[in-house]
């Protein structure tokens, strides 16, 4: 089973990379972009009996190690 975890800085926590990239887009003439957030994506292959079990496992991994929930939010997708 495959899990895709997307991790972003929380709303309200300044994302310096996103801000710099937003600025660069504007300089290049790409207008109309109101915000850029840059995160990371972690793709896992794992053994699990079903989607529910897989999601539970991945949530625990994410809370324990993959994300720092003081500053980051995440989404989990099981494929």
């Amino acid at each position, binding site marked *: 089973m495959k899990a895709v975890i997307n991790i972003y800085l929380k709303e309200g926590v300044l994302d310096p990379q996103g801000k710099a990239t937003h600025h660069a887009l504007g300089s290049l003439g790409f207008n109309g972009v109101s915000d850029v957030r840059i995160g990371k994506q972690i793709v896992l292959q794992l053994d699990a009996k079903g989607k529910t079990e897989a999601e539970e496992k991945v949530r625990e991994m994410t809370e324990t*190690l993959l994300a*720092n929930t003081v500053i980051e939010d995440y989404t989990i997708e099981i494929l």
Partner: protein
Amino acid sequence: MKKLLVSILQFPGTNCEYDTVYAVEKLGHDTRVVWHKENKLPVNTDLVIIPGGFSYGDYLRSGSIARFSPIMNAIKEYAASGGRVLGICNGFQILTEMGLLPGALKRNNNLHFVSKKQTIKVINNDNAFLNQCKKGDILNIPVAHADGNYYIDDWGYEELVKNGQILLRYCDNNGESKVLNGSVQQIAGICNSEKNIFGLMPHPERAMELILGSEDGIRMLKGFQNR
């Protein structure tokens, strides 16, 4: 003066452990460098220092993997029973990742690795670390980090202020607040509410000799021998 035994942790990627040994031994204390695979601290350890560097290559997030090394269980127990722990730079990042200190350290706002001498102001000295400094003292201490942008939410910040947990803030040569990396309220160092766990981004162990630009680190590290 009581001679202290200072245990200095070493992870793959740590690079300030021997500077820290030098600094502590210059003050007349004993040191042990403790490899992260150990699961016990040397008996009679008076202070643990988690030194600077790039543990596990800063992969995932700075400090996020080191916090699960075997020695860290011993550190948790040691700290829970009142033992003193000082995290410098990467050590500070590890302590926040472990939840032993509140908040988190993000990428610097300007995205650059900042490496230079920096003035910092002593905010609270009623603790085992900075008791040899006076409130308002301006210290000249090197910084060298990419992820030193201290973040804490508003409620957490109020708690730090209320409990006297803010140790140091970045400032200019006159002591006026100065933005270095985007830290909330220019915070450079904090401690926990029990005041036995300390973390800071600047490197006092690199400010031990006037010939190298500053010896203000001596006053900082001496604090531990007086309480």
